[in-house]
């Protein structure tokens, strides 16, 4: 009980309080502990924990291959990739300089010298530096295997954004319709064509949309027709009398409208969420410091 319950709670409470107090106490020792030492402790623990992770990964992948479970071929590729990266990271320098040229192996570098007949000598790259040296085997793997694969996964986002937007923008209810309209305004307002659409056009579209709303509510064609005719006439009349240019009235000009949506309702909503997140983090942290939350101990 003491080891499994009270000591972990005491450690969390002590170090939590110490880290919190470092914000308010002007003391170099406490500050250094909170900002440097504690994070270094964490990094050291995390570095050693990677061994546990790697062993777990290998164990599971080997089991999959040995039992030929579904998708075992991917496990075989994972194991091969693991050992390839491990070997070229720890046992092969993979970079031999001949002047400014870099070769993966010493033999290749010597062959190049023999071929050119130059008086240069082969200089192997230092251990440690070999993983960051341009032209080394490790960097080659990073540049031509790892980065393209990561970029491929990242690129998938574009397609997923499209499919997710398609679902989100279906006008199923009032909120979804609002999202649809806001989305269209933001998208159009941020591309060059948006600034070519006059405020007048938007006002006409708005008048027609309100007409549709009136019709679905009153269900009377004459009323709807009267509204559309009246509102379009009023827009045209006002526009011609007052000589509105393409971007006037500014509230109906798409680039200005999208800017307003982005900076006012959107920012207000995200700040509200941000305040909630901040308070949630503070409350959660205090629950741990005061030992109120013990779920992390499995209780």
């Amino acid at each position, binding site marked *: 009980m003491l080891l499994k319950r009270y000591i972990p709670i005491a450690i969390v409470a002590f170090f939590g309080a110490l880290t919190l107090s470092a914000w308010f106490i002007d003391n170099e020792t406490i500050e250094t502990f909170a900002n440097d030492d504690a994070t270094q402790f964490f990094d050291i623990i995390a570095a050693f924990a990677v061994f546990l992770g790697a062993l777990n990964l290998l164990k599971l992948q080997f089991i999959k291959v040995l039992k030929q479970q579904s998708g075992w071929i991917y496990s075989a590729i994972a194991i091969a990739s693991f050992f390839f990266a491990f070997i070229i990271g720890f046992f092969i320098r993979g970079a031999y300089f001949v002047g400014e040229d870099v070769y993966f192996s010493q033999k290749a570098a010597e062959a190049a010298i023999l071929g050119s007949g130059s008086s240069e000598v082969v200089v192997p790259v230092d251990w440690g530096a070999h993983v960051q040296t341009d032209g080394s085997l490790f960097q080659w793997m990073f540049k031509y295997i790892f980065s393209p694969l990561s970029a491929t996964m990242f690129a998938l986002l574009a397609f997923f954004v499209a499919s997710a937007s398609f679902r989100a923008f279906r006008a199923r209810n009032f909120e979804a319709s609002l999202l649809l309209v806001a989305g269209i305004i933001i998208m159009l307002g941020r591309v060059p064509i948006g600034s070519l659409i006059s405020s007048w056009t938007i006002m006409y579209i708005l008048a027609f949309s309100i007409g549709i709303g009136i019709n679905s509510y009153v269900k009377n064609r004459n009323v709807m027709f009267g509204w559309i005719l009246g509102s379009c006439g009023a827009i045209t009349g006002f526009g011609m009398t007052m000589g509105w240019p393409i971007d006037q009235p500014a509230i109906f000009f798409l680039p200005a409208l999208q800017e307003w949506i982005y900076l006012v309702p959107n920012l207000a909503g995200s700040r509200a969420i941000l305040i*909630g997140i901040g308070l949630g983090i503070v409350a959660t942290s205090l629950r741990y410091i005061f030992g109120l939350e013990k*779920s992390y101990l499995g209780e």
Partner: protein
Amino acid sequence: MNNKFTVYALGIVGIVLLTLALSVMPDSLNFFREDKSAMFVFTLIVIMIMLYEVKLAKNSSEPIFLRTIPGLKAVEEAVGRSTEMGRPILYVPGIMDMNEVETVAGVVVLGHVANMTAQYETELDVPVARAIVMQSARQVTKEAYLTQGRPEMFNEDMVHYITDDQFAYAAAVNGIMQRDEPAACLYMGKFFAESLLFAETGNSIGAIQIAGTGSQTQIPFFVTACDYTLMGEEFFAASAYLSKQPELIAGITAQDIIKIILVGFILLLIVSRAFFDLGVTEFNLVTWLGL
């Protein structure tokens, strides 16, 4: 109720006086950072309200009202659905390490989910992106299975490490989704760009999806692609909600009281700033507080 607000009012006055006293101490004795006074006052107020609410909750026999959070109610539904379909539950505790409070919250919620999977005898799969998270999640899951009296069902490989790299992890988790077709996918923790990769793949396999995160930029993606989303503070309240312990629920009450105080404070700042800008007064609370 009146007594409660008297305690809070007196407490706030006391905290402000203490801060002022610390600020005026002679330099030789002064260890207090005056530039952090506003934060210091706020922190002490939060601590005071939280501890007092917890004390009240412990002494009270009446249950504290907690509004229904659909996303958390749906967790049990998701476990039930997986049990009926005989398919596993996939739980992703984010991609960051245990130094992120969201990861800690995610691991805590995992404990509650593991309680349910142990109860319903449902398969649970927890791929993780950090080795320390793997150890913590294993411990929490093991305790949950022991608590439910099902230690034989616990297998430490149900929590397994994949990789620290963001997109490699996303690719592996998507592969697990495609191959194992879990009936429910739960994403609880800190997420970045991979959030939509998970949620859209989960959607394509027809899994019921519940997400919880404090990563503000990822919330819209989860809202779009998941069935339920715990937004920000709802996610941090999840542990209290699922545990139903009064002292933890009291923490949420404290959060709401602080929110009311903050709203009042923001309004006060707006009025003060407006009066200053209009030239009605020369005092500006915003500048005075150094905000």
